[in-house]
């Protein structure tokens, strides 16, 4: 009888340990994916800032001509600096998987419905999803809900998340160039 109780106790202990280890392992993977993503975004910003130093200066009270010249120069210089950049270099599979899971878990029922409505009402016709090329100037920008941004890895001020349909984009705030994108982000 005592032996049987001990066996049950051991069984439960092993189950709990394995289960905990599983969760811990998953959480570690997520943390690593986020860290890698943040590191790559940070590297992008470093490169951008180097390139930016050679672009025409942009003051806080610029004329439209100065803004245009700056934006065009930054866009072209970054395209050259990132020549050969491909989709999935920042949204690596493990990061994309984390984002998809997070959105699926955090947005359910009414919240998911509202999020989808908000994203799908954005008129994004004309946007060609192509890394290193600008988001179409004539297209609307999707509103990124505060509740959603709170759940995603935080970005530096130079980089933004944006939706085009179910695709999630990383866009340069000033040049409007698509840095990377991942399909099927929105549940």
């Amino acid at each position: 009888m005592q032996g049987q109780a001990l066996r049950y106790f051991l069984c439960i202990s092993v189950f709990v340990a394995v289960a905990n280890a599983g969760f811990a392992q998953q959480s570690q993977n997520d943390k690593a994916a986020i860290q890698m993503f943040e590191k790559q975004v940070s590297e992008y910003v470093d490169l951008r800032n180097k390139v930016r130093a050679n672009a025409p200066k942009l003051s806080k009270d610029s004329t439209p001509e100065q803004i245009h010249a700056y934006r065009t120069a930054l866009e072209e210089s970054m395209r050259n600096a990132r020549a050969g950049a491909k989709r999935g270099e920042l949204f690596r599979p493990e990061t994309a998987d984390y984002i998809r899971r997070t959105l699926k878990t955090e947005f359910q029922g009414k919240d998911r419905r509202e999020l989808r409505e908000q994203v799908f009402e954005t008129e994004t016709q004309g946007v060609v999803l192509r890394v290193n090329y600008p988001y179409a100037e004539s297209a609307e920008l999707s509103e990124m809900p505060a509740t959603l941004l709170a759940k995603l890895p935080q970005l530096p001020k130079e980089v933004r998340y944006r939706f085009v349909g179910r695709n999630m984009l990383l866009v340069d705030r000033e040049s409007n160039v698509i840095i990377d994108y991942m399909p099927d982000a929105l549940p």
Partner: protein
Amino acid sequence: MRRLHIHNFLLAFVVSVTLFLPVPAQKLSSNNAHSSPPKLTLPVKDGSVRFAVIGDTGSGTTKQKDVGDMMVKYRALFPFEFVLMMGDNLYGGEDPKDFEKKFSEPYKPLLDNKVKFYATLGNHDLPIQVNYENFNMNGKEYYRFKKGNVAFYSLNSNYMDKKQVKWLEDELAKDTSEWKICFFHHPPYSSAKKHGSDDQLREVVEPIFLKYGVNVVLTGHDHVYERIKPQKGIYYFVSGAGGKLRSGDISETSQLTEKSYDRDLHFMLFEVAGNQMYFQAISRTGETIDSGMIARKRS
């Protein structure tokens, strides 16, 4: 005979061409045909803070220019010092010619008279607009400025991230201004059928507004005018038809509406004098579509 034929042909050609020549854009404007003389309902008190509000302006159409012209007419009676822009400042492209056609030209008389415009970003605006000299955003997507006893907070509702939420809380927490006005693009409350209330944004910003005593919230996005019934003591306006109109878009069954207008473009005038804030909403053709006074609750 042959000469007569040629003469008739030429005459017919000239008459046809004249008939089909496009009418100059200004003549197409119904402003000239149906505009009402300015009729001010605001008290114009000494030392008051006076400003105008326009939203969703950047279409570059003749009608946008009509609104700009009507603002000039009203400014002769009500010398407002600055204009708040509710976003969607430039639809479509953002090349230098777009800034000219969709902003500088329609408001040229105001700009020439040193009226300052303070912009916020809409869902059609590239963030780089924050660097444009005439939007007075000082390179920032969200910012605060003060006039008299009124603090103004321009927020970027396209991208309400944690940093912005924290900034708003920190700024409001130390703000001792009598009036606190927040303006941004997406309306937390709206009865328009196209977009309507932005519940997700409201979930985040409304508790902050309530906690720190924001009095008035000005927004755009829906291309209509709407004064919302006070929500938890806060007055919300939707002023999103300064350059684009969505005719008939207000839901007639909405319980939110105090007053609405969706038949023409409009702009608004505000005057803050002590504990009173007066407002007047004016159509493109000069008709008063709404007016009233908001009394500040003493904290």
